[in-house]
């Protein structure tokens, strides 16, 4: 009696054979105990594999929040790198551009400048937000700007672990992870 080879039996155990080969193997198995045992052994190892693949006990919610924050961070880092690369790739391009391209660019810029000049907003009355020095500061609920007796606040109410940083040229930054959604938010305030 010719037995099917091991590969055939291994594939039969997982129902991975085509119809014709499966039927032929089934006919063989009806009268071959040795091959039936082989198939049974393959089936058992499949079951063991399934059991091994169950997730161990983990704190999924915490893990998910951590992963979401890291993904967001990775994307932000990727953006920074891409911006830098784009800036680098544009620098030599500008140098190599010919006079015609420069002329075209200059024309476009002139049109844009004229448009901006014509569409310029009416000057703001100095009493609205002017006067006095501007003060940026971090509070318990966010970062805020005081200027001329008026206040602008950016709040982060649902987070406890907030990182603040202040820029020497008049900026303040607050970065935090939202405890409910896991989203990373970075607020920047600049004084001009």
């Amino acid at each position: 009696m010719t037995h099917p080879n091991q590969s055939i039996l291994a594939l039969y155990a997982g129902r991975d054979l085509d119809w014709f080969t499966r039927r032929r193997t089934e006919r063989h198995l009806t009268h071959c105990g040795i091959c039936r045992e082989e198939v049974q052994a393959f089936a058992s190892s499949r079951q063991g594999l399934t059991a091994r693949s169950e997730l161990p006990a983990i704190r999924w919610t915490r893990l998910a929040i951590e992963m979401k924050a890291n993904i967001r961070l990775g994307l932000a880092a990727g953006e920074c790198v891409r911006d830098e690369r784009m800036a680098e790739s544009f620098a030599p391009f500008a140098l190599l551009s010919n006079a015609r391209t420069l002329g075209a660019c200059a024309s476009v810029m002139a049109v844009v400048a004229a448009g901006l000049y014509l569409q310029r907003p009416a000057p703001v009355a100095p009493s609205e937000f002017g006067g006095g020095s501007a003060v940026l500061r971090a509070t318990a609920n966010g970062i805020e700007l005081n200027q001329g007796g008026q206040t602008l606040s950016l709040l982060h109410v649902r987070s406890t672990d907030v990182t603040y940083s202040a820029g020497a040229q008049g900026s303040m930054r607050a970065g935090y992870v939202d405890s409910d959604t896991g989203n990373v938010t970075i607020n920047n305030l600049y004084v001009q």
Partner: protein
Amino acid sequence: MREVADPGLELLETQNRFVSDHLRRIFVQIYRIVGNVADAQDLTQEAFIKALQRQEQLKDEHKAAHWLSRIATNTAIDFLRRSGRVSYCELDAAPESHDESPEDILLRSEQRDYLEDGLRLLTARERAALMLRDVEDLPAEEVAQRLGCSKATVRSHIANARIKLRKYMEKRKP
């Protein structure tokens, strides 16, 4: 004064929804290939970052999910090849429930170690094919798509993997 707002709030929402919808599925899929939580976490993050950097692929949700699975599989296979190691079982993760006794956990861990040793005998592609077919229960056509090869090659990988694993189990019964 000017405020620098986060650009593309809508895009951000789409990305967040995409991550929330698929995070667990992709994590489990990768975990089944690499076999430990820490590596699965890193590779899941890597797969999502790769996927989200190609915005144009996310327009069709069904295709995006399929495409993400493929990225996840390839990321896991690359990792196995790169590191030349497979996995170990972790006991440090804190349990969610206290149903299992320490003896049960230890027993399960030993069983897992025993199978992990067997899986080390497989190539990265054999292991991925076996996991996708026998554990994820994907049809061979789908496995072929994920691995970027023919159905015949997938069958060959699966047959080799099952034979190697079975021989290992015969030699080393727990």
